[in-house]
């Protein structure tokens, strides 16, 4: 006779074990309901069959745990990584551009370059009423100071932001290197665990989470190999992670591929390049990844797109491809107008016929102004490098990479303003009058003159105020684009995160329903043991 009593007990015990396993998995899901990157798991049960040879009845021998399922949709994860890249890229840019945008307020109560330009020309105009008035002259000096101040402040703010971003690259790359080395370690653990046929659920969760975090930094491709490891590859083809190995990126401002001179930046230093060093102990052999990373997505690209990407052969801070160099070009254009066009007009017509330009304007004491007579720049060497007496030497001053940060007034003495011009008909013999406003009138008319300049990749023809308006337009378009990108990427991120969570996230309701269900099964199994016990008692009592 078959021992059904023992079978009953064994079946009940197998059930107790199996239900406990399921309950443990449910409790783990609940415990990790708020753990980032955790993918819910489920223990799969399978009936334990054992044909009963004596009765021929296939009653079964209870239940057993067959496997563990980790709920993951690789497609959803990839979409999420892309969404994180775009969101991080747009947010980084938008945050930085918000700071830039503040420099170009439209409310009319901030000393923007536009306002100080208008005020400066108005002060020159005011002085034409009474050119010898020291009060009106002092007003021109003050408004000139305001203009110089607003240009320098704006330029320096852009330069400081560029420097801040440059310094941030090191932190970002360090964190990328840390993540890729962790991914490599996890690769090794996944391979080890899965070689035994188990699912390396914990390691995969952590690895997926690291990949999501890495997406916030830069663009990359992921390829999973048959042993469960993944390769993380930059769009250019460089493997950042392969098997249990990772490659560290470096940030350097003396790359091996550069010549003797490196491009200057807005703040005066050299830009950092993101590189991989193929060289060993024999010396550095850098490959430039900056452009590759910048053309992708993620926060690092956002930083580079704002800071500007420089080629090692660039010679000007305005050649960088990015928001800050392009915007600073416009500010530099205004500075160059003041240093060249304005100063040249300020000198007045040439008093000689050919040769060195002889100024014909005069200050209140009959003195003629220097070559950079009104707007000047801080430089200790020779400013009129070609010696032609004209302020046309920008770009020839050793060590000077921008003039906006060096801009200053040639004199702050109101008497030194050259308001009049030579009134003597004899060439070369200068005589002026204190009430002459001929020079001022010529300077005032400059405001409406069309001026053409090319700085870096920026070329523009227009009045000087239109230069500023163009900068406003540029900032507005960039900021609006980043704000739109941010809105779109936020919304896409939400969709992608929802899709991932639909598959992978823990649902407390769901888990508790299962908990109740398996708890009941567990209680029933325990009851079975009692029944089995009672059956045995019945037999013992009958004996």
């Amino acid at each position, binding site marked *: 006779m078959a021992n059904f009593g023992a079978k009953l007990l064994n079946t009940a015990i197998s059930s107790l074990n199996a239900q406990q396993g399921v309950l443990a998995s449910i409790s783990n899901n609940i415990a990790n309901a708020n753990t980032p990157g955790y993918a819910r798991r489920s223990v799969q049960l399978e009936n334990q069959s054992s044909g009963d040879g004596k009765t021929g009845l296939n009653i079964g021998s209870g239940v057993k745990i067959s496997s563990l399922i980790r709920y993951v949709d690789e497609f959803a994860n990839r979409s999420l990584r892309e969404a994180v890249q775009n969101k991080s890229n747009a947010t980084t840019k938008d945050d930085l551009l918000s700071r830039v945008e503040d420099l*170009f307020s439209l409310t009319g109560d901030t000393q923007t370059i536009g306002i100080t330009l208008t005020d400066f020309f108005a002060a020159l105009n*005011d002085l034409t009423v009474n050119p010898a008035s020291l009060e009106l002259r002092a007003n021109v000096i003050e408004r000139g100071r305001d203009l110089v101040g607003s240009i320098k402040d704006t330029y320096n703010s852009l330069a400081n932001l560029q420097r801040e971003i440059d310094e941030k690259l090191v932190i970002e790359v360090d964190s990328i290197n840390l993540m890729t080395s962790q991914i490599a370690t996890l690769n090794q653990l996944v391979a080890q665990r899965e070689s035994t046929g188990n699912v390396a659920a914990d390691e995969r969760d952590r690895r997926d989470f690291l990949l999501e975090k890495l997406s916030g930094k830069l663009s990359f491709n992921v390829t999973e190999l048959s042993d469960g490891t993944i390769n993380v590859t930059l769009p250019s083809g460089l493997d950042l992670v392969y098997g249990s190995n990772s490659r560290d990126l470096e940030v350097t401002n003396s790359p091996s591929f550069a010549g003797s001179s490196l491009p200057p930046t807005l703040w005066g230093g050299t830009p950092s390049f993101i590189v991989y060093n193929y060289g060993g102990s024999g010396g550095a052999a850098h490959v430039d990844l900056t452009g590759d990373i910048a053309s992708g997505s993620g926060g690092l690209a956002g930083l580079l797109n704002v800071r500007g990407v420089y080629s090692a052969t660039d010679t000007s801070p305005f050649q960088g491809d990015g928001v800050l160099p392009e915007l600073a070009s416009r500010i530099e254009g205004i500075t160059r107008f003041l240093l060249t066009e304005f100063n040249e007009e300020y000198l007045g017509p040439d008093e000689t016929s050919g040769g060195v330009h002889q100024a014909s304007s005069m200050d209140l004491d009959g003195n003629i102004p220097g070559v950079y007579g009104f707007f000047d720049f801080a430089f200790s060497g020779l400013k009129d490098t070609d010696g032609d007496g004209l302020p046309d030497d920008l770009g020839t001053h050793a060590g000077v990479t921008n003039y906006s940060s060096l801009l200053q007034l040639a004199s702050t003495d109101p008497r030194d303003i050259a308001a009049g011009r030579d009134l003597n008909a004899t060439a070369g013999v200068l005589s002026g009058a204190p009430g002459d406003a001929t020079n001022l009138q010529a300077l005032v008319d400059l405001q409406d003159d069309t001026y053409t300049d090319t700085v870096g990749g920026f070329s523009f023809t227009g009045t000087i105020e239109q230069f500023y*308006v163009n900068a*406003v337009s540029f900032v507005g378009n960039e900021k609006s684009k980043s704000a739109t990108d941010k809105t779109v990427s936020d919304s896409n991120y939400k969709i992608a995160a929802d899709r991932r969570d639909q598959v992978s996230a823990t649902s407390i309701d769901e888990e508790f329903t299962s908990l109740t269900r398996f708890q009941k099964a567990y209680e029933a199994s325990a009851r079975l043991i009692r029944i089995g016990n009672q059956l045995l008692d019945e037999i013992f009592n009958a004996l």
Partner: protein
Amino acid sequence: MTRITESQVLRNTIDLIQKSRSDVVKYSQEASSGIAVAKPGDDPTLAPAIADMRETVRRYDKHKLRIETARGVLGLQSDIMTQANDIMVRAKELATQGANETLGPSVRAQMAAEVLELRNAIVGMANTKYQGRYIYGGAADSTAPYNPDVVPYTNSTSAEAAKRYSYTTSIGNDSIRSVYVTDSTKVDVNTPGNQVFDNAIHALEILGRSLEGFKSSTVGGVPDGGGIAYDFSTETSVQTQDILSTIDLIEASRTNDLQNEQVTVAGRLARIDNSVSILDSLQLNLNEVLSRTQGADVFDSATNLNQAQNALETSLAVSGKVLQISLLDYL
């Protein structure tokens, strides 16, 4: 059926609340500042136009301030011309009286003293300063435009009568300054003194010397300081004739120079007034356009703010409900 997890509900809830909150902040800023486009990125298509308009409004403000200065100096010139005109009218009266031959040389000599006073008054006007500068000196406005010539009148009975005033020869004495009162309109703010006062001063000096008893020799109508005394035994009628001829000179200087200048200055003042009204109207239009493009519609902002507040309250209420519901409460 789509699987919904707590993390999704939580994310959506936070998103909704944040969106509503940021709307509340945005519209409350709009409603309180009255400005919808405060930064270039708020509306990049309007931003360049707004920046341009802001600069233009500012420039108009500066034009208006400058106009007040110009109005001050031109107003002073207008007053001077009125007074100078009155003086020349009085001079004409004196010349007419002095031409009466029944008056003896001594009475005429006494009248000469008053004519000299009138001459000095005209010279004083020609040497008027505005904010420390001589307004009739052209560009040479740091020195008085009229000074006693180094060659005085000969034979005069007094030092004052010997003074022969002439316009400065300083360089720049013929300069005229013009200033912008709108973006495109310029107004002259000075006239070189010789164009206004030379003939009047010469006429008064010739009249004064005639009454004093001296002839005046002239070069091109301008006295050169020479001129001998009348021989009253034979030349009383010559003196009378000389006095009578100054009436024409006085009248010519009054109508051709002083009144002409008065009309010119009045014309400049009228142009200035016209410029002010043009600027006012331009500024009004510009401010209207600015407030249309940059300004927030107060009613819209208030309505939007109200809606955003309601949305925030609703989202908070909904969140409270949604987040509270859990199967745990029923187990």
